[in-house]
């Protein structure tokens, strides 16, 4: 498998302390004052030229946040976060209005190049050179709304999406240009009062993506956003809202990586998905935030609230995630299965190595009749990491015929790590049918010996076995992400054997 080999070679060239993506771009930034107060919230809102109603919304969240306490139930340990010691906003200085990628700061483009994200290539291959009237290339096409630090700096494919009636823009822009949609849906899945981190996000979110797919429209391309933390001590509070109107379909890809730094960084994103009647949303993530160094120092704290609302009948929301990074991951992409016959899916690969701590899983809340859900979770723990799957499946009294299938597999590499499974199941009606399977296994010495006897190095052998273990989930990812994810998986397990 060339991909694995290439990865293993790449892995040999880097060690944990030379995190491949650990560099910083020298861009003058424009920061909010340190600490959190009504002034900080107002500063952010002003920076975004927001209307008064949005500022009010943020302030309300902020005031509520002051009354809340940080949740402690997850199986993660970290030093107390001083919320007054963080910056809550930073942005590269806007140069001027850009109409093409050429006008974007070359520093930024270089950053993407180092990350291996072919933004320029995408633009050249798929955007600018194509003349009017020419057929679109047959390969899958990706639109990139690149979020650099906190502000979106480049948006491609805008025109084509516009033709289809799809709105895809930074949420800061949507607040100004589509206030009726934002007012109607923002906070309708994850209310401002939802949880400590989501409430914090509601007060200070800087930017993120907004997608609206009109009735009956199949979004003509995969939507993809790359996020990047670039300022020292800057929390990243990204906010994404995706609405699939009746009978529409959209596939959204999100991937990120962050530069190395010494201090821990707080990342508290909120993603809300709304699927109306007969609509489908597929949301995929490859997460590779800086996990900390070989001593367990540094690394991103990733406290994410992701939730989808299958609001209409026959709607479907599918989450696929590949989580390899972050020092701490606290993340439970969930589905509220409100519409009758709606369906929720969660496919997850969560890998922890070194001193990483992962507490991740999903919630499937069955409210409508004949709702179905499927959970496939693959946890891989190596080094001294702790990896917890936490899941909740419930059926409401009225959710007759609800069905869930959960398969939760953990793989341990070495004997200093831990894998834990915490499934909660609650059926309030007798017709609900929930199935749960769980396995925990170790990478067996016999399997490793078999592979090495055939010529694979220990590292290649582990990569191969792990890629086999996660295959069911990798298959859920769009092709281009599957390849990238496969590489990430091997990279993140570097040094886990031998």
């Amino acid at each position: 498998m060339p991909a694995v080999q290439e990865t293993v070679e790449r892995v040999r060239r880097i060690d944990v302390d030379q995190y491949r993506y650990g560099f910083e771009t020298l861009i003058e930034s424009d920061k909010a004052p340190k600490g959190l107060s009504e002034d900080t919230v107002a500063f952010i809102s002003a920076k975004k030229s927001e209307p008064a109603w949005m500022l009010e919304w943020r302030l309300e969240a902020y005031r509520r946040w002051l009354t809340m306490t940080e949740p402690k139930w997850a199986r993660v340990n970290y030093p107390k976060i001083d919320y007054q010691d963080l910056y809550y906003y930073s942005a590269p200085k806007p140069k001027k209005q850009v109409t093409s990628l050429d006008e974007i700061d070359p520093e930024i483009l270089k950053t993407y190049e180092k990350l291996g994200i072919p933004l320029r290539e995408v633009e050249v291959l798929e955007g600018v050179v194509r003349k009017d009237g020419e057929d679109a290339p047959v390969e899958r096409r990706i639109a990139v709304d690149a979020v650099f630090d906190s502000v979106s700096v480049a948006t491609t494919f805008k025109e084509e999406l516009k033709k289809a009636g799809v709105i895809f823009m930074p949420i800061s822009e949507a607040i100004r240009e589509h206030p009726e949609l934002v007012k109607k849906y923002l906070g309708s899945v994850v209310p401002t009062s939802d949880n400590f981190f989501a409430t914090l996000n509601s007060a200070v979110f800087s930017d993120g993506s907004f997608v609206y797919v009109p009735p009956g429209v199949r979004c003509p391309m995969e939507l993809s956003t790359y996020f990047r933390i670039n300022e020292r001590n800057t929390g990243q509070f990204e906010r994404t809202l995706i609405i699939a109107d009746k009978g529409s379909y959209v596939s959204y890809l999100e991937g990120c990586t962050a530069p190395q730094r010494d201090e821990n960084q707080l990342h508290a994103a909120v993603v809300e998905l709304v699927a109306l009647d007969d609509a489908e949303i597929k949301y995929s993530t490859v997460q590779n935030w800086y996990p900390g160094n070989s001593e367990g120092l540094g690394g991103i704290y990733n406290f994410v609230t992701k939730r989808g609302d299958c609001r209409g009948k026959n709607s479907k929301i599918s989450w696929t995630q590949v989580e390899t990074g972050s020092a701490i991951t606290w993340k439970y992409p969930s589905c509220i299965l409100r519409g009758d016959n709606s369906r929720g899916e969660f496919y997850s690969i969560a890998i922890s190595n070194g001193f990483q701590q992962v507490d991740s899983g999903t919630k499937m809340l069955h409210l409508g009749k004949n709702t179905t859900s499927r959970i496939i979770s693959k946890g891989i723990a190596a080094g001294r990491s702790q990896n917890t799957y936490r899941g909740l499946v419930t059926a409401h009294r009225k959710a007759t015929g609800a069905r869930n299938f959960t398969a939760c597999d953990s793989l341990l590499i070495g004997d200093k790590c831990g894998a834990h499974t915490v499934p909660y199941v609650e059926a309030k009606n007798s017709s609900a049918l929930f199935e749960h399977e769980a396995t925990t296994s170790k990478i067996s010495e016999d399997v490793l010996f078999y592979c090495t006897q055939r010529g694979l190095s220990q590292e290649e052998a582990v990569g191969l076995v792990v890629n086999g273990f996660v295959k069911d989930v990798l298959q859920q990812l769009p092709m281009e992400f599957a390849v990238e994810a496969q590489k990430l998986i091997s990279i993140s397990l570097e040094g886990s054997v031998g």
Partner: protein
Amino acid sequence: MPLLEVKDLTVRVEDNEILHGLSLTVNKGEVHAIMGPNGSGKSTLSHVIAGKPDYEVTGGEILFNGEDLLEMDPDERAAKGVFLAFQYPVEIPGVATMTFLRTALNAQRKARGESELLTPAFLKKAYEVADRLNVPRDMLKRGVNVGFSGGEKKRNEILQMALFEPSLCILDEMDSGLDIDALRVAADGVNALRSPDRAMVVITHYQRLLNYVVPDFVHVMSKGRVVKSGGKELALELEASGYTQFEDAA
């Protein structure tokens, strides 16, 4: 120079000494059969030659083309041409056999400084070998040994051997679990690989296999030692009289 020289080898596993000073010399072009009762240490010997980590070599040496094999990692040994067809091949779920074969072959080639085989060339070679050994092509799409019958697993081992073209083939009970027809096909596969540059060490309990793969030498192992060596007629003798005559010698 012999291809393989095992000299006075002693091996321990978890405080038990299992091989107590075993010697064996194998030259290129030869086929050696090793026979012996259950637990006499046949698989242990094959594992130590291939480099399985759990064993502690407390004495003696193993030379391969004059080089110290015990200094090498298992993958280095594989790249140098040591192949072990396992008595109990493992399953690797989710990894297609074809992917596994290609990854392994290219890892070996790379270690030897040869160029990687590109997919079309590899596929051609793999299908050619599979067809020759009566291995259905569909089997190559399935996970490595996952859900394979005992006989299919064994055939998959022979297939890998034919594909990698190693210079030393150790076959640990390749005949167990094979039906008569499969045994003949597998034996034909092994015989096709016999060459002046290659040697085979065939571990078996049954004379029957040796009718198909005719050995130049037969060794009898008992309690961690080679207690008797001879020509192919030794196997017939064993078949008639069993191992008891050697128990005392050990």
